[in-house]
């Protein structure tokens, strides 16, 4: 495995499982024998706010936070958050693995004059902006894949599966880590979701 530092930024909306995804990826990297540091945010922003987890692994890691423009990969559960975080952390070579869906609660859709209208960048334009700027871009219809598997809640594991292809971490380490970190009853479902995501590229 090469010794250069890998920086993975995970982002999404509070409640989407960013913290769990961070656990799985960081323990998988840890099991592979690398030095590793992570940083996550708990508390208020977990309630629907914009949240991120930083994961860094390599030969020797000091800062748990990823320096600007230095993400090796961004894993995102919401396409708007992908755009938000690429602004600070991505460079042209950053690998982007993102949901193609984005969430806007109704009330935030109001304009300044207090009339309702959806004046945000729509998800279609968001996708084309990303396509224009990043050569390694994976946009997945994770919700649909998850529905086909039978549970919408595993969409984040599907995206981890897609990201896993870009790492040197072996498949059996991923599977073992997932097994250890999800509720016992959902192990099979999550493994299925991971493999589906991994095979989706």
């Amino acid at each position: 495995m090469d010794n250069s530092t890998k920086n993975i930024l995970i982002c999404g909306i509070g409640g989407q499982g960013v913290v769990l995804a961070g656990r799985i990826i960081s323990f998988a990297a840890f099991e592979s024998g690398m030095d590793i540091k992570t940083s996550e945010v708990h508390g208020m922003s977990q309630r629907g706010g914009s949240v991120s987890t930083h994961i860094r692994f390599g030969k020797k890691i000091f800062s748990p936070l990823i320096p600007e423009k230095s993400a090796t990969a961004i894993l995102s559960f919401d396409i708007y958050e992908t755009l938000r975080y690429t602004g600070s952390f991505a460079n042209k070579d950053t690998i982007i693995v993102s949901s193609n869906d984005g969430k806007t609660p109704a009330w935030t859709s109001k304009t300044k004059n207090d009339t309702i209208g959806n004046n945000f960048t729509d998800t279609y334009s968001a996708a084309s902006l990303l396509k224009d700027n990043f050569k390694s871009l994976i946009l997945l219809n994770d919700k649909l894949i998850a529905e086909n598997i039978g549970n919408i809640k595993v969409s984040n594991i599907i995206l981890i599966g897609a990201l896993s292809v870009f790492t040197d971490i072996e498949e059996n380490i991923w599977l073992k880590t997932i097994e250890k970190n999800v509720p016992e009853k959902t192990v099979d479902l999550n493994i299925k979701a991971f493999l589906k995501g991994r095979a989706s590229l």
Partner: protein
Amino acid sequence: MHNKTLDFSKLLLTGNEAIALGGAKAGVYTAVGYPGTPSSEILPYLSKLNSGAIVNWSINEKTALEIAAGTSIGRKRAMFTTKHVGLNVASDPLMTLALTGVRGGLVVVTADDPGMHSSQNEQDNRLYSKFAKIPMFEPSDSQECLDFTSKAFDVSEEFDTPVILRTVTRISHSRSIAVFSGKFPFDGERKNTENTYKKDIEKFVMVPVYARKRHKIALERLKRLIDFSNGSGLNTVEYNDKEFGIITSGISYQYAKEIAPFASFLKLSFSYPLPDLLIKDFVKNVKNIVIIEELEPFIQNETAALGIELKGKEYFPRDGELNPDIVLSGLKKAGFFKDKKTADKEKNAGKNVRISLPNPLPPRFPALCSGCPHTSVFYALKKLKVPVMGDIGCYTLGALPPLNAMDSCISMGLAFGAAQGLSVTKSSHKKTVGIMGDSTFFHSGITSLIDAKYNNAKFTAIILDNSTTAMTGGQDHPGTGKNLSFNQSVSCKIDIKKIIEGIGIDEIYAVDPYDYNETLKTLKKALDSNNLNVVITNRPCVLYPKKIDTGKKFKISDGCTGCDLCMQTGCPSIRLPHGKTGAAKPVPFIDSSCIGCSICRDICIFNFIKEI
């Protein structure tokens, strides 16, 4: 993991988990605290380690530290955990424990929140160590969290003083590798029923005649601690390029090492009192020195007091948290990179991506959850246009748009006191409301409600009882009747209504907040009455202790004109379709995250929201 002998070799731990493990390694007997981000995970993890320690949530931080003090007086090791602002609550016992000293080791863990990820201020609790004249450790990763926690107990006993272990969010909530080996030592000790209690009034009764003596002892102790700071090996010097030197502590050390690995370092792990000789030596050997520290110029001022003027805050902000990029820009200003390439940053030059958006991204204010029982109360309060003194918890989100129904959030337990104080000004024609959650009521609302009754105040107190401490992750409190201790748990459930009856307040209303119309009616009734009265809501949190889904599903039926009444709940499940729909006003829909609380159905006066 529920083994008493553990031979963990290499672990990937958060700082909080490592602190818990360090406590277990030191044989901590009692560990107590009140939940608060970013400190909340220390006690649950310690409880799970099942080291034999008594691990409990306390009603508030002051009580917790007092319990820890008692254990220390009983010659056993005690640990108290808190977030930065919680130490204000416990500062009364802390300041005098600094005089009495300890018997069993007493460690105060304060987890600060620079950047205010989940706090109402970003005070720098390093100042408490100076204020109380007690020593302080500042770990910079999980290994140090483990080692220093354990070491802090030894220092506490050796120097007869409480010891502060100070972390920040990026230490407490960062994972890094920690190596642990050994046993949790004191398993047999709990069975020890030998009478070892000893009275020592000159040490523990702080009446003036004894306190004056103890103050002198504390000052003398500080001198010995400076020697320890110089000679213990905890504060370390790394000489590299002697042109450039950095004095730093805690998380700032990691950012500085990341950005300027070529520099020489003086790393302060035992950061109060400062190692004067080490600093003087470093200054003699290195040409250009800067101090890198988050928040206050603590090291800088202490160094200046030694007669050594070094720069620090001239290059780095005094507010917010640091990160590698802020450290880089500060060091550039300080001339550290005149002839040097900076690590990754320049390497990536030319790879910048600039995306210009046609329209803004949706803002993401934190919001109450789908089905949160607080929603209907704030929706009703907004409609009633009353002045609302608020408090600290998930329900603080009721202050944000679209609910906008809370007018203050200052300190924990403030609401009822502030409501009393505001109501007497008659600055509003409407009756004043004070609002707080159940855990906050236990923490420090009870006293102010007694004061309100005592002083004949007239306001409406609302207690949002969701049977948990929700914002910090669902911890238990006296109202839940459960606590942490893995095997010693014998806790009692305390009834909020009985407490209020006991105070002598007769007008108490209980209401189900999932019934919006009844909630509105009850609030109106309470506000119409000129008495001090209390409204208690009684729906559990939708996340803790277990996720709730009523199983009901709702949809917005055809005919809806997009009037936006339901959207004003701020419910994350009510959404607008993407893109232009052609309709004058887009019609919202309810997505699959709805848990069926039915509040929006009651709110839609046109009856377009129906159960399916």
